[in-house]
């Protein structure tokens, strides 16, 4: 079980914020549509809640990164 968890956590880490949002939206929709086997529904729910947590974490930890494009003509 814990192996499953860490593997899935890694899956999340690869997601961009937008991807996570899209997947979350899809999960909510499927769950609300019903007609799911209970195991699927539970898995979807757990995944969805982790996505919510993941997105909030991303926002919490984000710090604006600013880089400056060097002007090529200034370089030798």
């Amino acid at each position, binding site marked *: 079980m814990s192996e499953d968890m860490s593997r899935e956590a890694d899956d999340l880490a690869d997601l*961009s*914020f*937008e991807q996570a*949002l899209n997947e*979350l*939206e899809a*999960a*909510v929709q499927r*769950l*609300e549509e*019903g007609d*799911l086997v*209970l195991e699927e*529904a*539970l898995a*979807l*729910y757990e995944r*969805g*809640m982790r996505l*919510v947590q993941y*997105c*909030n974490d*991303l*926002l919490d930890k*984000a*710090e*604006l*990164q*600013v*880089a*400056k*494009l060097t*002007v*090529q003509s200034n370089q030798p």
Partner: protein
Amino acid sequence: MTAAQLSLPLDDEGWGREEHFGPWTVGALTQYIKELLEFDDLLEDVWLRGEVSNFARAASGHLYFTLKDSEATLSCVMWRSAAARLTWQPEQGTAVLAHGRISVYAPRGNYQLLVDELHPLGLGDLHARFEQLRAQLRAEGLFDAERKRPLPPFPHLIGVVTSAQAAALRDVLNVLRRRYPLVRVLLSPTLVQGEQAPPQIVAALQRLDARDDVDLILLVRGGGSLEELWAFNDERVARAIAACQHPVVTGVGHETDFTIADFVADLRAPTPSAAAELAVPDQAEMRGWLAEQGGRLQGGIGRRLDEARQAVAQSEALLRRFSPRTQLDAQRQYVDDLSRRAGRAMSHRLALDRAALGGLEARLAALSPAATLERGYAIVRRADTGLVVCRVDQVQPGDGLVIRVRDGEFGAVTRSEP
């Protein structure tokens, strides 16, 4: 010299002119002209519009130029002291409003304007150029709504074209940090005003646009005068924006400033901060949305679990109905039922029997010897056996008898044969 002295128009009667005979000297005539012009009230205080040409700044710091319009030209001088007060750089072709007085420069026989104030008259001209370029680019379709591209809803990398020192950049970064710190910013620095600005802005745009990882470009500059914002009305800048493969958002000046760049851009924001706001989603809204999704997940799984529980309960009921125990119970109940019915039938039957018995009893009573005894008959039984004596041979003399009559019994002894 005498003649020149005589020529001074000192006399109201004008004798000087009348008294002047013979040729003037050049100097005397020039002096006469100089005094005519320099003491004229009108020419002492002149506001003049014209276009600058032959502009030259002497080593002394004095400015020499000509003001002209379509009909005439006029030499101008601006002494160093007045020139030092200028906050702008007059150029060839600039339309200006000059103030000064007319003077005559005798050595060259020149009259000229001694300028003490000089203002650019660009506004009217700039407006004309603005309108002309706007009309032209509109005709080319560069402002068409179909050209406007939507902004990516969740940008990863935003390119910012502005001056690295500008307050506009600080404003943009503050807004991005507050609203959507997930985004990365790539600054492409450039001058944003002056003659060098347009080509630099074009290059800065192109450097960003050449990258595939840029999602959109912000082209911003803080507020300023029309002249200071002029680079954003440059045709080269406009065409560079139109050529960008990534969406461009402009935020130049204040709410009321519209530049050609704004018209070409995919989206125009009134200020740099507003441009940054349009470029990214708001994390406060995102968090609200996330909370809502969390709630919907809870609700969804709650309903699903309820369904599951219900299904389990139904199955349990079904199972119970068909279990052996239930069948046993049912049979037991059947037995109970039967026995209850049997009991009911039994007691019914007993009641019937009892009723029948009653009837018989009554009939029996009617037939009993008691009634006969009532009529005076007696029943004679042997005292020793209790047997009823019906015949004579059943008794011997001396046998004890019991005689029953209507209201009781009494004993008797047989005496003899009759």
